[in-house]
């Protein structure tokens, strides 16, 4: 069976933005992200039938894909709050891998960090020009 591999993109400045984003998250977010990658790693086809963890982006962000996951944050005496997160990157079925560029949280129409998608487009462009390198996530 296919075992997908996940890589972080490291820019020419040496920055690994997806690893930085991951390290800045709380343990709940990191754990949910790690489990999501484990599930995707063992899922042969992410597109047909569609896997809810995964989405190809279109229009201005064509060429990018996102890995979607969430956490349910408990609130005493109330329903938990669902927080939605995305890992943006380049899905390469021919390589059997996904190159993570940046991560962000989606709150309604707002992204945290706000320029996550623009940064992902810039990183994608650099990656496609052969600038920087990739580092496998464990």
């Amino acid at each position, binding site marked *: 069976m296919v075992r997908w591999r996940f890589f972080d993109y490291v820019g020419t400045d040496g920055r690994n933005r997806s690893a930085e984003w991951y390290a800045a998250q709380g343990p709940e977010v*990191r*754990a949910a992200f790690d489990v999501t990658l484990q599930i995707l790693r063992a899922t042969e086809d992410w597109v047909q039938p569609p896997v809810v963890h995964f989405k190809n982006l279109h229009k201005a962000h064509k060429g990018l894909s996102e890995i979607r996951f969430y956490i349910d944050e408990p609130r005493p005496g109330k329903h938990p709050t669902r927080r939605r997160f995305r890992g943006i990157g380049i899905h390469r079925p021919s390589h059997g891998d996904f190159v993570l560029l940046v991560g962000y949280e989606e709150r309604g129409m707002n992204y945290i960090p706000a320029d996550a998608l623009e940064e992902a487009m810039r990183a994608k462009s650099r990656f496609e020009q052969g600038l920087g390198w990739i580092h496998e996530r464990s």
Partner: protein
Amino acid sequence: MNALKELWLRLREKRYREAFVASQVKQAIPYQIRALMKAQGLTQAQLAERSALSQGVISRAASPMYGNLSLNTLVRVAAGFDVAFVGRFVPFSEMTRWLDRLDESAHVPTFEAEDHARAFEGLEPAATVTENTRPSAKREALVGTQQPGKVEALFRLTAPRLTAQAATVHEFPRPRVKVAEHTSAAAMTAVSR
């Protein structure tokens, strides 16, 4: 460092490991449901019918975004697949190895498939009892003879809905067996030969 060791280091943080277990349960169960549907060639509607659940419930059960599966739903879904479901407490090392070996194509045979594969040495496989499993349906059985690849129906017992076409056909070790014998309205006993 390999992935399992890396994960183990992260699990040393208690909040991380608590969250990891929660996320693993919420995502790995729907993953298995989707994998089993694929392996058994079932649509959501077909699994819903076999599980005596609505298609909406199946849709939610198979979605990792739902995250609020009930035990009642889980046992119904297991019944729909005709497999067992074991929810048990395990050490973290076992969980991480299991997750690492997660495989969409891992085969989970149904009870009947196991029975016919002689799950326990010395036990003859039972003949097939074909019944409508919807709780609201009348209990019913198909009585007939069975050959590899086809069922030859002799008669139906209180069977307004059951047809020979609905019968499950298995490769039996013997050429002909009596399919089922009706004993009471509430229970049926399968007999071989």
